[in-house]
């Protein structure tokens, strides 16, 4: 039997969850024995080259590109997992959700104390740029998500245990130390 194929991405996140994946240390050698990676920053494959079994999503959706990537993952992965606070609830980026987007943009590009020179009061508007959403959305509001791994970031062991459980079909080990948050 061929190895299960895993894809990962970071949407509106900080890559902290991906760092946590790398935190499994020497187990990374076991990991590449266990699974094959496709689209992922880990192997730098930019587009899906085949259908995947598991998609790990870090971060929520703050712009139109996040939405496209997430929908692409849903199309190409049998199982999608929201990894970490931002994917599950929006996380830190969602702090802007109570503020109208125009106010956010004005503060960032026109009126903010760090704005040095913008005499024409331009807010970036190139067509190449992703369009910002009115608020940051958790992934499950955009596509169906099958599993959730909580944490900021989820501990390396939790991600590892979850992957192993998904691949082997065994029950997920959830010792207290892995899911306590204080």
């Amino acid at each position, binding site marked *: 039997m061929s190895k299960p194929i895993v894809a990962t991405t970071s949407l509106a996140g900080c890559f902290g969850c991906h760092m946590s994946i790398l935190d499994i240390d020497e187990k990374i050698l076991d990991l590449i024995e266990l699974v094959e990676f496709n689209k992922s920053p880990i192997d730098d494959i930019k587009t899906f080259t085949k259908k995947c079994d598991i998609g790990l999503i870090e971060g929520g959706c703050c712009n*139109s590109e996040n*939405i496209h990537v997430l929908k692409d993952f849903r199309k190409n992965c049998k199982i999608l997992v929201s990894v970490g606070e931002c994917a599950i609830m929006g996380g830190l980026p969602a702090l802007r959700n109570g503020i*109208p*987007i*125009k106010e956010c*943009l*004005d503060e960032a590009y026109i009126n903010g104390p760090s704005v040095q020179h913008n005499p024409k009061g331009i*807010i*970036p*508007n190139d*067509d190449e740029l992703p*369009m*910002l*959403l*009115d*608020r940051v*959305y958790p992934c499950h*509001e*955009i*596509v*169906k998500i099958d599993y959730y791994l909580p944490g900021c970031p989820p501990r390396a062991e939790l991600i590892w245990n979850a992957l192993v459980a998904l691949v082997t079909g065994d029950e997920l080990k959830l010792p207290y130390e892995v899911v306590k948050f204080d």
Partner: protein
Amino acid sequence: MATNVQDIITKYNKDKTRLMDVLIDVQSEHGYIPKDITKEIARELDISHVDVEQTMSFYHFFSETPTGKYAIFLNDSAVANMMGRQKVKETFERETGIKFGNVTPDGAIGLFDTSCIGMNDQEPAALINGRVFTNLTPFRVKEILRDIKDGKAVEEMYSAAFGDGENRNELIKSVVQNNIRKKGPILSEDYTPGIVIWKKLPEMTPEQVIDEVKKSNIRGRGGAGFPTGLKWEFCRKAAGEKKYIFCNADEGEPGTFKDRVILTERPKLLFEGMVIAGYAVGATEGIVYVRHEYTYLKNYLENLLQGARDRNLLGKNIGGIEGFDFDIRLQFGAGAYVCGEESALIESSEGKRGEPRDRPPFPVEKGYLGMPTVVNNVETLCSVVKVLLNGGEWYAKFGTKDSSGTKLMSISGDCKYPGVYEVEWGFSVKDILEMAGADEDRVQAVQVGGPSGSLIGPDEFSRTLCFADLATGGSLIIIDNSRDLLTDIVLNFTEFFVEESCGSCSTCRNIPNMMKLKLEKILDARGIAQDITDLEEWGKVLKVSRCGLGQTAGNPILTSIKNFRHLYEEKIQKDKDYDTEFDMAAAVKASCEAAGRIPNLN
């Protein structure tokens, strides 16, 4: 204005624990409590300004802005809506030219929604400057508004005769009807006020009183059903230089109005019960916490308390018992359902926000002002008078094995005879439907115990009312098949919990609101099967809330899913197992406008 506030503060001895009373008086005097007054209150009571503001902002009937010369609070309970509230509301809005939540430009009339005001048997009802107007119709609304235009005083605006019994009393003069449909030991006329104090207490030790109450097996009537004798014993044994007896007359559970009737018709029985409790526990002060909506009974009750003092039923050496001193005062609330929770009620009486305390310690150990305190329901305190008069064994004969005595039921909704029924525990729902003249073939559901209780269907009507089966604080709302159960009842009750959460626990602050949105999604035919599962799962999380309000806030939805699942299932989209409600065009509209670019939606 300034001297006025000074008078009020002086009246309460500049005591910061009486902040509620100060605010109530200012609100009623001025129609609102502006910032300069809250600052003055803070200075005079020697507390910080935010202390005043946080208490003030907590209660529905305190307002920082003027509420109008005539402040009209129209009840928004489920039954009010069933009885035609919508048309009454529309008439108010059309005739005054303003929407609810506003005051007319000339400052004459304010229109506001309010949670159940305890008049479910005579809805639609409203409070106008604290006075109750019942059985409102569009026609009646026009009359009232005409009277307001003519500048009539509120008490001159009644067109119908006053209600029955003591509602006609010179000191009450209200159109409220008692609607007593069935009497038992509590509502019986066969009662001589003071009889236990004169004849029984002098011959009994406090311990004997507690024993007698224990023998009766009486359990608290507020809904939780804690054995009363045991509570008294705990408090008696607790160490404290002063002890307090609280009567919880804050019945805020929509659909409940039995305490209103007791406070109107049997207040002496209640006061005597408090004196008995005071004697048993060793307390010197009693406080009746009355919900704001019953302020129209204030002068009447104050007068009776004075009468009791004159007759030595309150005061020093009561009933000739050397050294037995006990007095009672009224404490009014200001519109907060959560204050019916005993520790929140104590907090409120201390002049603070009505937020429930962490327990333990329980009030019997550390209650009002940190002293041992018994909090009993109105009905419980009334019952103990009869227990002492006739003996605990006599009382235990009423009702069932685990639930002794009688229970006052507040019956409302779709039936011929809404009102108060004093029945023995052990009656079935079916019995009550028959008594109340409900057309059984048409009844689709009964809400037992108010929004925090359960919504049951006909297959459960043979269940009996008792702590072992269907426990209830005493309200039954009958709903016939002309009603849309989910919209008229479940959504209304859920909105009630959203409105009444004190906000202290994040569960109760957030989840009811999320559940409400989800229910609206289902009602709007946008739901999927997962939404029903989500509601059930989220409801479980509410159980970690600190008080009963939060723990039961999901009950309208949870019990209706359990007993009327088909109503949910027939509304959801069956062909979808996932439905994103995300709309890219709507989501990027604002940012594209701000940046001046045309959305690219491909």
